[in-house]
């Protein structure tokens, strides 16, 4: 199952009808378009690449051309129900700020990143090479990823930042971490919220 399919399944299960959804790093708008068609969401995208912006406008999506690493100050607080951050956290310079901004503009964040502690990565590291896998398909010299993140690391940081992080399962349910997740998951799928939010 491709990451997109895995993510889209989870989004479809999880995001309620008519929700207000912000997609950070929306690419060509595939996820937003899918959510608009199937869940009638009110979508908004942000992307740093102009060709992506053009593609989204062509598809009738409203988008903002900007760098999420520089903050989301153009967006008012609590504008969205969900902020999506797919396969981008490992590429941002200020992950804490990005997460905090996500939870300022939206009630929940839905996040995916490649889990560096997946057993395939561990095996490759043991042999002395930087892991190259379908989830981490780059060589060390051409990777856009500037951080390696494991599911355990992510949870730890969220605890420090008073962020509640739950694993988003394939069926759209979210559950706390269990001991196998960090070893067996190729990707981390999380729903985050400010501590004390109703679930």
């Amino acid at each position: 199952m491709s990451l997109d399919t895995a993510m889209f399944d989870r989004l479809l299960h999880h995001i309620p009808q008519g929700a207000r959804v912000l997609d950070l790093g929306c690419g060509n708008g595939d996820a937003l378009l899918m959510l608009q068609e199937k869940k009638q969401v009110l979508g908004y995208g942000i992307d740093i690449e102009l060709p992506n912006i053009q593609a989204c406008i062509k598809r009738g999506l409203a988008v903002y051309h900007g760098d999420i690493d520089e903050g989301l100050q153009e967006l008012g607080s609590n504008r969205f129900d969900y902020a999506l951050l797919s396969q981008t956290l490992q590429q941002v310079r200020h992950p804490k700020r990005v997460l905090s901004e996500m939870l300022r503009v939206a009630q929940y964040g839905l996040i995916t990143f490649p889990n560096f502690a997946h057993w395939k990565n561990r095996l490759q590291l043991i042999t002395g090479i930087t892991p190259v896998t379908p989830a981490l398909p780059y060589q060390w010299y051409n990777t856009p990823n500037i951080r390696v993140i494991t599911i355990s690391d992510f949870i730890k940081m969220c605890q420090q930042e008073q962020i509640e992080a739950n694993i988003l399962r394939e069926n759209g349910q979210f559950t706390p971490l269990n001991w196998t997740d960090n070893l067996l998951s190729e990707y981390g799928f999380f729903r985050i919220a400010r501590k004390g939010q109703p679930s």
Partner: protein
Amino acid sequence: MVTSHLFTGFTQESPLPLDSGASLYPVAISYETFGTLSASKDNVILICHALTGNSHVSGSPQLPGWWDHLVGPQKAIDTNRFFVICSNVIGGCSGSTGPSSINPATGVPYGIQFPVITIGDMVRAQHALLTAMEIPSLHAVIGGSMGGMQALEWAAMYPTYVKSVVAIACTARLSPQALAFDSVGRHAILSDPNWNNGFYYGLDIQPNRGLAIARMIGHITYLSEESMRLKFGRNLQQRSDYGYDFSTEFQVESYLQYQGDKFVNRFDANSYLYLTKAVNYFDLHKKYGSLEIAFQESHAHFLIISISSDWLYPPHQSKELVSTLMKLNKWVSYANLESPYGHDAFLIKNDQLSELIGSFV
């Protein structure tokens, strides 16, 4: 299919009200149309020209339009599909009523007795034209620079009439730096003895020196440091070495002088005063109390485009507009075009710009 028209409206009994409190009659608006109006009149795009532009947005090889690469059959703004209207602004000198028009009260050109007009007044006059043409709504209003200001003002003044707005290289109000450059331009005209307090029409001597200098200053603000460096460097125009005198030596000097001299043949000094003043007074925050109030009633979809190297109306001013529209939950998209050409980039052929506008409309 391009056709030129002249609309005349407003009378002494029912003049065009102006933001200053004054009023104006009669008001002539010269405009051009491109393409064919649909039976349901729902395919109308109004294009608003910039400070020294005119209604000739699209043309022929003999008489090119200023946005030929964007407007025409099968172009981004496709005249096979849309009925495009472009009118000359009031206050200008391209056929619509302005300071060089005859003042009905005196029988001679207005000169500086012409009332000071605003971007809002330009838009009010355009609305009168479209009403006379029995156009029920605008599919889009599009403009760059001063044209973008008109597009924004359209959304604010006629919130349900406009379905979409494209504002390029634009701002909701000028920065003090931009005001300063315009002020120096006006001073150049006002201090030209041939300006003669605005009454030079029909005289042999025109305030060409002042107007040319104003244009040179303006032109600097339309370019960027990078574009000037790439285009001229420090190259000398004719000599191989410095002449140690005060003649025009550097290519950039010669270029500006050429632009200034060319400009005086097609533009009226008083119009330059009036139009820069209109741009300087443009302030949606002040006019409506806040930018939020200006746009809160608007039903339009917005596309805001800035130019990365535009230091006259820099991208952060466009972002402020976008931010406000987002807060109001308006449908708004924003793109910042990477271009080295400065403010003027909106007039230069740019595939990304065409693609964005074409996709949006």
